[in-house]
């Protein structure tokens, strides 16, 4: 129950890494622009460039242990690998790459299926590492404040910050309940396990609602009037980082123009 969990580890890194105090705007600008370029342009070089730059930033600027970065990448990569193999082997049309005669039909592997599989794999790896940079270096609070600054509707930000806080409370409760059930053999069979999860969800639901009422009471006791106000102090965006991002994005655009035909989808 107290073993490390992905959300806890990510959250801890986000709050303790050397970049946690730098401006969320800079990081959001870099990540969002790189993501958009990554998924919008057909070149396979672009995602690879994004991947390498993100990896360098994560490992050397944010000093995230390489083992953790690899662990974070490995799970989605496994899923992705499977999906891309399926795409490569079962999708596509036009020019055939190979034909496998099977007793009842001929299984055709298409060239564009394979290229799509490979392109997708590279694109997702690039986008993921870029997302991880944001996730591992930016404390959630800063994201909330940043969102409020850029005029995201207040109600959205308010609900989000309450959700963020209570996710941690409820995950802890859920883990305790899961352990308690495990200790009384609540997952000794498939059916028992389904029932156990039903019981946990039901209880968790009641506890969530009660927590909601108590939190509301506590908020009222401090003068809540329907609006959650925040102190909005944020570090100033670094000009150098913004310029570097613009430069990097321009290079990506240039590169993509010259390499767009490397993998034709």
């Amino acid at each position, binding site marked *: 129950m107290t073993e490390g969990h992905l959300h806890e580890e990510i959250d801890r890194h986000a709050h303790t890494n050397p970049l946690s105090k730098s401006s969320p705007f800079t990081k959001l600008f870099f990540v969002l622009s790189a993501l958009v370029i990554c998924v919008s342009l057909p070149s396979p070089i672009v995602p690879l460039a994004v991947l390498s730059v993100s990896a360098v930033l994560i490992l050397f600027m944010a000093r995230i242990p390489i083992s953790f970065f690899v662990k974070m990448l490995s799970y989605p990569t496994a899923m992705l690998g499977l999906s891309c193999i399926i795409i490569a082997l079962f999708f596509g049309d036009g020019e055939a790459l190979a034909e496998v005669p099977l007793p009842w039909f001929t299984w055709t592997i298409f060239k564009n299926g394979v290229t799509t599989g490979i392109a997708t794999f590279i694109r997702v790896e690039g986008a993921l590492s870029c997302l991880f940079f944001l996730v591992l270096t930016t404390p959630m*609070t800063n994201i909330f404040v940043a969102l409020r600054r850029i005029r995201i509707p207040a109600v959205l930000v308010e609900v989000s910050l309450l959700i963020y806080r209570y996710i941690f409370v409820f995950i802890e409760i859920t883990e305790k309940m899961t352990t308690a059930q495990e200790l009384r053999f609540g997952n000794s069979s498939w059916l028992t396990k389904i029932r156990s999860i039903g019981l946990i969800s039901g209880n968790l639901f009641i506890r969530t609602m009660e*927590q909601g009422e108590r939190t509301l009471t506590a*908020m009222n006791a401090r*003068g809540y009037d329907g609006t959650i106000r925040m102190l909005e102090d944020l570090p100033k965006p670094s000009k150098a980082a913004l310029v570097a991002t613009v430069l990097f994005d321009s290079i990506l655009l240039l590169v993509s123009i010259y390499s767009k035909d490397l993998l034709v989808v």
Partner: protein
Amino acid sequence: MDMPFYLENVSHRYSDGTLALEDVTMSMKRGERIALLGPNGSGKTTLLLHLNGILKPTSGKVHFDGKPVEYSSKALLELRRRVGFVFQDPNDQLFAPTVRQDVAFGPLNLGQSAQEVRRVVEEALDTVGMAEYAEKPPHFLSFGQKKRVALAGVLAMQPEVIIMDEPTSNLDPRGTSEILHLLLRLSRERRISLILATHDVDMVPLFADRLYILNKGRVVSEGTPRELFSDTQLIRSVNLRSPRITHLFEVLRKEDGVPVDERLPLTIGEARREVLRLLGILQDDLTGGSEVVSPWRHHPPIKNKRG
């Protein structure tokens, strides 16, 4: 007026029909430290929730500062600024993503300027010794730390009265001692009136000037800790017990016929004097008796930049 709170025959019935409070009359002088003592389910929390208008009496009246409490949202905001409430479970109270944001919530609701808010938040965090955790999310803190942040969130509104529900529950000895010292300091240095609900009988004599004993929604007795804990019959009838120190002397008097003073000692200081008196070597120069004797009294546990 010198009486922040006066409750007049307050009863409260929940919508499910339970009569949680029955005919409670209670008063408080400015600067007083009051403990509501009662077993679980005796109505302590319900009573507290009437003091800042979270609950409205079904019958009876709550007076604050000489005027009956009004329940318009404007009047309630003012009441809640002046009467701070610290909940038993700090997880109910800490909802913001960082300690600083949470402590700032109250002052921001009062419409103070950002600069002013920043100042009071800083000061409140300093007072409870949590300044260095300002940027941390609450889930990084220990239970005792969360409790202190919850108190800071209330202090930042600069209240005249602080209400705390079970301030020492779930805290280890050090955490208990820290919060107790903090409360005593607030009471002495800032003349903040305090009302605690608790079932920690050993803690009460160290803290309270005056005591209300609650049972099944009724006030069964009122008085100084000394007066009430001498009535062991009463204490037991409501499923409480005497402080352990008191119990020792009660046994000595009743079972062993030792000529212990009628007014049983409640604290270690008082017990010490009593033993010395019994041993016939009471020295006149013995230092103050009813003071909190803490194992950490030479190591003030609370950081405070201002000294």
